[in-house]
């Protein structure tokens, strides 16, 4: 499993990578996961719905991440508002 984070000026960076079946690696993944949530990030797991549809699932704890998920993507939480109009 990979933990990725979107970053301005960079695109995504890999925060942590490991096998959830290996306790030590899972611990590292959990710590990295918590750090991002503590910083106010949202965490999403891209999924495949029945019929080939692609969706995402927002997760609030590592326990909610499906064990077979390949990656979790962290991104800044949504805030109302948008840049000035550029019509």
């Amino acid at each position, binding site marked *: 499993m990979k933990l990725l984070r979107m970053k301005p000026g960079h695109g995504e960076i890999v925060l942590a990578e490991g096998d959830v079946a290996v306790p030590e690696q899972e611990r590292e993944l959990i710590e990295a996961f918590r750090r991002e949530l503590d910083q106010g990030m949202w965490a*999403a797991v891209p999924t495949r719905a029945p019929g080939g549809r692609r969706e995402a699932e927002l997760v609030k704890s590592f326990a909610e991440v499906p064990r077979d998920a390949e990656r979790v993507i962290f991104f800044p939480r949504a805030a109302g508002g*948008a840049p000035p109009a550029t019509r």
Partner: protein
Amino acid sequence: MGLALGTAAVVLVVLLWELARPTLKRGLAGGLELWAAHRRGSAPAGYDPGRERRAEQRARSLLRSCVTEHDWAMYRDLGFLRVWGGLGDSGRGADAAYAYLIYPHKPIVAYVPETGELLNEYCVAFPDHSKPYGSSRLPDSDDVLAKWMALTADERRLVGEANMHLPGRQVDPDRVRRDLVRLGRWERERDNVRAA
């Protein structure tokens, strides 16, 4: 008499020009330098267009890996993504009563697919306050992916976080209507290619 006065005036003008020319040249050069310094100063600190391009390339790859081939092609060819609304009776899918258009760094636009009527704009941003390179703004395709993930995962929450406005507040309604026409044509052409 007139001729003498005219000649004197011409000589006076030439003399004044010769005296003022060095000062004028220095003033012009200084003005150009100031203007150039102002232009340099207006760029964000540490701004590197190469880095921004590489960031966008990475963001595009990530987006591509998360959405369907159809949606990726839509974004690549048209510059926006359509997401079917999921809160209606018919659920998320081509039968949905409403849908959204996601543009990079612009509000999400809700519309009725059947009629093309524009419903609302949802102004939402994903500012990264750590500003790693002096900017809190995600690459375009990351912004689109963040909206897509938030919409498909928890539409109600994203809509709740956004500022809702009537159509036309930030996104030109004519542009959206043109984009809907482009989208319809694009999908027909893809269907035709597939059928052939």
